[in-house]
Structures are given as C-alpha cells and as structure tokens.
C-alpha cells in the first residue's frame, strides 16, 4: 500500500482486476456513450465510464413519455433503446478507445443465449475493460428484471456469460429482492468478478386527470435520492455476504452519498440521475472524496471501503 504525503490521499484502487484512478464512475444509461458529455467535463478524470446498455440487435425501446420527475427522483422507462452491438462498436468505440480511463460496457439480452453470445462478441473488441451484465432492468417485458429477481436465473445468466468471455464480468442486480445476500452470493458463485448495485426500482405513476399511467410503458424505474437509503442498506448487506467488490449506485448527488456507500462496503460508486441535475457531479464527488480523506487523515480510499463502525 502506498503511503502518500499527507494532504494528497490516494484515490486509486482495483476493482474486478480493473485499475481505477479513482472509485467514481458514471452509471449506465445516464451518460450515453461518452461523447454527449465530452464538451462539458473532462472524461479522463472519471474513474470509469459505463455506457448505456447494448444488445446484439438494435433496439427501439419504449414509446414516449419515457421520463417523469417525482419527489426525490425520477421515473424512466427508456426501454434499453440502443444501436446494437455492431453499430455501437463502429460508431462509439473509436471515441471511447481514445479515452485514458477504463470502459465498462453494459450488456443485456432477452435470453440466456443472447447474453452469452453478446459477451463473446465483446471479448474480441479491443478497448473494453469489463462487462456489466444488466439483469435488473425494470423496463423491458422479457429478460431484464425477470433474470435478476431469481437467484437461480441470475446464476444461469452469469454462468453463461462467464463461459463466453475472459473479460471481468459485473452483474448488475435489482433492488427489489427480499434476500440480497442470497442474490449476491448466487452472483459470486456463478463467476462474477464484481457486483453492481442497484438498478432503478420498479415503480409507477398515474395521471389522475386521465386515469392513465403517465409513462407510455405503464411502469418505469425509480432512481435518484429517493432510493439512496435503500441502496445503502442493500450494498451493506451484499458487501458482508460476498468477497468480490461491490460497485454501488443509487441517489448519489454529491460526495456524501458516495462516501456513505464506500463506508458501507462498496469499492467503487457510480453517479446516475445526478448527471442530469449537474453534469459535473462525478467530478465534484471525486474532489469531495479527496477532501474527505485528507481532512480525516485517511491515506487511501482503500482504507475507507467497508470501514463502517458498529461498536
């Protein structure tokens, strides 16, 4: 462990074998494929980029309305719209490869085979650091959440991906489970190198004037500060249950929430909804963690991870 001079704490750490200059990523689906925010912030300062979910074929996603602000957060039902594997690789990988930070590609499928198949294809794509396996999207009819809500199905998807790629794999689990430790252990046993927690919560809003659902997809996923305290609890439980690192997300709006996740046991965090509120959130979080470590005389962010005191 390096022992940096006082006042300049070490933010670097390795997660799932990926070396991160700092533990702050941007969450899948909230940061596009990178270029969208490139004019606004220096992407090379991020810990890593996690891109919007990719499937084998292009996907149109859901009709509109797709988003709605609600108290403490927002509902979205984008429905995993994406250009598909080939177009993603052709259109976005050149840009992403030009960055000096790790790239995590979020993938999803409608069948276990599709997950494995897509993972195998990414194995051959230079510039990809890891795959985040989305088995927790609340916004598609088949696949998505149905895999993540059952530990056996989750394990089946993860095993299939494990067999298809040498890349580190990071299943992304849903928050609506009654037994997070069991789900996290199932993911670890099936070969996960890290675990992402949490996706948005299945949720719904009704227009009382028309008596119709507000989102065209009827239901959507709740994200933002509203879910943060639930996510902290789930991350804490999962971190106690498994040895692989946890990447935590859910309602990070500034450094405080990120530090909470790290103390609860997460090795890295991702900023989602807050990218919309303030595109510079992730950078603020990085500087906030640095300041916190310095003020508290903590030499490395690794010393913060899982440092919750219960006695």
């Amino acid at each position, binding site marked *: 462990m390096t022992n940096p001079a006082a006042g300049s704490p070490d933010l670097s750490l390795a997660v799932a074998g990926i070396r991160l200059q700092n533990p702050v990523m941007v969450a899948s689906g909230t940061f596009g494929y990178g270029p*969208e925010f490139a004019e606004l912030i220096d992407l090379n300062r991020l810990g890593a980029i996690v891109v*919007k979910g990719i499937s084998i074929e292009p996907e149109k996603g859901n009709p*509109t309305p797709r988003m709605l602000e609600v108290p403490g957060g927002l509902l979205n039902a984008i429905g995993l719209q994406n250009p598909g594997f080939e177009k993603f690789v052709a259109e976005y990988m050149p840009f992403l490869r030009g960055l000096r930070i790790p790239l995590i590609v979020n993938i999803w499928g409608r069948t276990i085979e599709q997950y494995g198949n897509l993972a195998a294809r990414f194995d051959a794509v230079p510039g990809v650091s890891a795959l985040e396996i989305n088995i927790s999207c609340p916004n598609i009819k088949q696949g998505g959440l149905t895999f993540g809500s059952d530990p056996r199905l989750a394990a089946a998807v993860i095993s299939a991906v494990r067999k298809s790629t040498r890349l580190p794999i990071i299943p992304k689990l849903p928050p609506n489970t009654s037994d997070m430790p069991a789900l996290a252990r199932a993911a670890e046993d099936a070969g996960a190198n890290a675990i992402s927690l949490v996706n948005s919560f299945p949720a719904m809003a009704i227009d009382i004037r028309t008596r119709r659902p507000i989102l065209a997809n009827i239901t959507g996923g709740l994200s933002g500060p509203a879910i943060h305290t639930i996510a902290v609890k789930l991350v804490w439980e999962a971190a106690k249950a498994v040895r692989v690192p946890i990447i935590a997300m859910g309602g990070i709006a500034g450094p405080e929430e990120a530090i909470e996740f790290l103390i609860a046991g997460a090795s890295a965090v991702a900023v989602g909804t807050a990218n919309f509120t303030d595109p510079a959130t992730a950078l603020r979080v990085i500087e906030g963690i640095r300041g916190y470590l310095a003020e508290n005389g903590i030499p490395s962010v690794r010393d913060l991870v899982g440092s919750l005191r219960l006695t």
Partner: protein
Amino acid sequence: MHLENASVTQHRPVAGAYRELSFETTRIARETRPGQFVHIRVPNLGESVLRRPFSIYRADGAVISILYKEVGKGTRALARLARGDTLSALGPLGNGFPTPADGALPVLVAGGYGVAALYLLAERARSKGVLFVGGSGRQDLLCAGDFEKLGWQVVAATEDGSQGFKGRVTGALDEWVKSGLGNRTPEFFVCGPMGLLRAMADRAKALNVRAWLSMDRHMGCGVGACLACVQRIRLPSPPGAWKWARICRDGPVFEAGDILWDDREDG
C-alpha cells in the same frame, strides 16, 4: 455547450402571466443561435433532480433571457428569483432553426411562449417576414411590438377579438393564405403547443412548403445521453420506416414532413 453559473441581471413581468428572466452567462450568450434552448437548474427546488428547459428568448452581449410563465413547481421557484441570485445554466442546447431560405418569405407562427423561440430568428434573419401570434386576449399577445420594431409584419389573433383577427392564430393564417400569400413562397417557423405544430404541419403539406417546428418534450439530460426526449422521425425508405431523434440534441426543430406523429405525446 457550456455549464455556467449565471447571475440574474433582471426579472420583469412582460405581459399576462409571462415574465422575462435575464442572466449573465458569457459563453452561452456568445454562442446562441435562434431556436436553441438553455437547461436551467432552478435554485431552492428541494429534491428536484431535473433541470428545466427554456428557449433562449434574447441573447445580447453576455446576457441571455428566457420568457416563461408559472405552470408548476420549477417555474414557481424561478419566479422567486431576484437580481443577483445565481442559477446554473446549461446551453446553448439543440440545433435551433435553420437560416430562412433565400427567396422564401419567413413566416413565424407562435403560440404561447413560442414567441420566445422565434424572436432571435426574426432579429437575425436577413430578410423580414411576418409573425402570426395568437392569444386569448390582447394581454396575451406577447412581444408583438418587439417584432414590429424589427420591421416585421405582425398578424395578431385573439380568441376574444380584442385585437386583430378574432379566433385562433391558424384561422388568421388561413385567411392570409386565402388572400394570396403575397407573391413569395412562405417558409414556416413554428413554436407553440402540440396542436399548433400539427395544424401547421398539415398546412405546410397542403401548401407544399417547408415548416420548421420546434418541439417540446419532458427532458432529462438535455444533451442527448438519456434518450428521454425522443421523437419518431421518418426514414426515406422503406415506407413506414422510422428512427428516434433526440429532441434535445437532434432538435428541438424538425422539418414537419420528417415527423411521424404519435397519437400519444407528452408536453
């Protein structure tokens, strides 16, 4: 595209329920083109996670302004801002309107706060044209005088007949079309409620002219990343084929003929 902390320089009532909020934001102001918008983080808005998009009404030196009325909690909180308060502004966003085609007569059609998106176009257009503006009464005829000052012809329509044509703005336009259009081909630039946009798309089709429509949609990121604000756009082939365009980044202005109207749209 810039993210700037902007300081409020002026906040004044305009007409009816509308107010103009001006703030200093050098880089955004300098780059603004007609029809672009700014995504504002309203201060003191509790746990609200989304910014609010507004057309850039004026851009002058280092200052831009928006024209808005209170419709919900974000605009209510905006209304409490005073000179010297700061807000975070992200912009200029979107592509805005194209430059009016040479030879065509630029015809602007505004409903409600739609004039806000059109003012810079009128100010910067090489040739002057006509503005059609509507409201329920004369007190709603936002900024008509400003367009006149620029040398534009203004045709007003009020539902109560208190000024100009009695009826809707499309009614006034239909009369004007019937009366012969002058001798130039009109090119429409439209901003207003969905009903007005669709009505103008129909008229442009009937007249076989171009209509540039500025669209509203609930927005997340404002920069093209979240895919919340999408609109179906026709593809040249095969028939019926379409793709999503992002209103925030690929729009907010689209040519009427490219739009595949949905029966259920928000905003």
